[in-house]
């Protein structure tokens, strides 16, 4: 270890190369998002989870519903379920990714992010985008079920739904941001995410059709933000098909409007609460 070497290193100019404030924020958001993707694909538990969950829910539960109750529906159940589970996987994946922030804060990794000279909003947006991309990668498990369960599916229809994937993932991320805005204990977050994910999966029509839901279940189904995201995906998939009126709950623009408004409101409230609570201990 010589002083000369250190001198050479120290003399390197480290003025920020990125002069524009906006570009610096975008650069940081991209870096945080990429880090999220790397963390997800390098985590064996997350990969196994990605494969097993679709097998359990689509293969066992969906398969059972299809065989025993599917005949009573006025449309093919398996494509209906597949579209629901695509939306559900994106939604859940991003919520889970955002919730990890609570654990990372406890483990102090986020300290590095929150002392960097960037906006707190950039940190959360970068994290959300990364979780969204990771969730899209995790669709591999769901899509492989098309082959395994021999679900009849037109490639064009599927591609149209997949084009909607970023919106669905961001919608899940927005709910995740709202959630972490109010929760700071990793154990509570772990339990809370289960309570956030599973009722939505069953009540928002991902697996089980909810068009006829009434009473309390009907109210809960209407309140679930994922109901509108899933319906948005089905709007795309069933557009121009005879079963559109039977399989889709709301018009496309209505689902899109609700999803956009909910996203903006959740992101603003969640980020404000998260940042305020983080500093105002």
């Amino acid at each position, binding site marked *: *270890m010589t002083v000369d*070497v250190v001198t050479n*290193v120290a003399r*390197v100019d480290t003025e920020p*190369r990125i002069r524009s404030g906006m570009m610096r924020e975008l650069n940081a958001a991209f870096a945080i998002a990429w880090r999220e993707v790397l963390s997800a694909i390098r985590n064996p538990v997350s990969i196994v989870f990605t494969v097993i969950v679709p097998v359990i829910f689509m293969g066992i539960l969906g398969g059972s519903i299809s065989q025993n109750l599917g005949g009573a529906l006025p449309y093919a159940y398996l494509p209906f379920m597949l579209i629901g589970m695509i939306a559900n996987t994106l939604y859940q994946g991003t919520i889970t990714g955002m919730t990890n922030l609570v654990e990372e804060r406890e*483990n102090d*990794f986020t300290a590095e992010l*929150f002392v960097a*000279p960037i906006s707190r909003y950039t940190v959360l947006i970068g994290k959300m985008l990364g979780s969204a991309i990771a969730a899209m990668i995790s669709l591999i498990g769901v899509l492989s079920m098309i082959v395994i369960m021999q679900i009849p599916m037109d490639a064009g229809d599927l591609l149209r739904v997949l084009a909607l994937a970023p919106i669905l993932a961001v919608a899940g991320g927005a709910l995740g941001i709202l959630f972490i805005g109010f929760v700071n204990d990793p154990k509570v977050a772990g339990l809370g995410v289960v309570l956030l994910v599973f009722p939505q999966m069953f009540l928002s029509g991902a697996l089980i059709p909810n068009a006829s839901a009434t009473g309390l279940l009907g109210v809960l189904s209407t309140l679930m933000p994922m109901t509108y995201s899933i319906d948005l995906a089905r709007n795309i998939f069933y557009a121009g098909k005879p079963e559109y009126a039977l399989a889709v709950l709301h018009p496309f623009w209505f689902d899109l409007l609700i999803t956009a408004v909910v996203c903006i409101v959740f992101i603003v409230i969640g980020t404000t609460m998260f940042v305020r609570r983080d500093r105002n201990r």
Partner: protein
Amino acid sequence: MQNVIEVQNLVKRYKKANVNAVDSISFDVAQGELFAFLGPNGAGKTTTISILTTSLSKTSGVVTINGFDLDRQARDVRRSIGIIFQNPTIDLHLSAEENIRLHVALYGIYGYKPFYRMMPAEYRRRVERLAQIVGIDKELFKPLRTYSGGMKRKLEIIRSLMHRPGILFLDEPTSGLDPVSRASLWDYLREVRNEDGTTVFLTTHYLDEAEDADRVCVVDHGHIAMIGSPAHMKRELLERAIVVDAADRDGLLAELAALELRTALDPNGLIRIAYAADTAQSIIARIKTPLSVLRVHEPSLEEAYVELVSGSHEEARA
């Protein structure tokens, strides 16, 4: 020398707490200074460092870092500082280089590229050379799970210095490290300070690390108990002493009494002669009785610290 940290009447009271964690403390740190911020657990050290590094809001007071107001110019403050936290803040899913690449992107030093080879040649040269200096060049691209505690700390230091901060906050940087890792880490920090004139704000429980500090600030129960150079602190709190004994102990004691020197028996049963104004040499020169034991006791910062903190705790109990 210009002050780069100025703290005036800083107060922090946590929500639902009955007492202030930091209670109206004021101090400043000059450019290039090694400033040791010491205190027992719960004294308010980490709270203070968290406020100064913008990760915790203060209740009241005025703080200026590198000329920037902590409240109104938090982003400029963050750009001016580097931080090594008490707990590691590296991402174990990434390699060492990926952690550094994320850091330089967060500070806007280089545009982020998903792959190392796509990063500018200047960045690659710099990272490889720094890794060589601290001895992690062979592990630069390996998962951090394979790193020892000392290597992780070195990585955090490289990372925190990538944006060349004027002020480096080190919150117990060597806790949990073995003595060899501690020594090598301090060698590196010393070189960085010598070359760059970086101001270092240090908290540590290893008092020997604070012996080289320009100034030491001891906090206890959220208050500043003492501030000054280590030598000043030792002088104020502890007596210097020589420890002697002789085969003719009675004769020695009689001679010391005749010389009007203050004596006492130390815990080992040896004769302790405290002195303030004189030097040890001037006392030894006056003793004629043949000595069987002669030791000059130079108090350490740790002894002074223990004296100060235990004294204030006894006062609090009384």
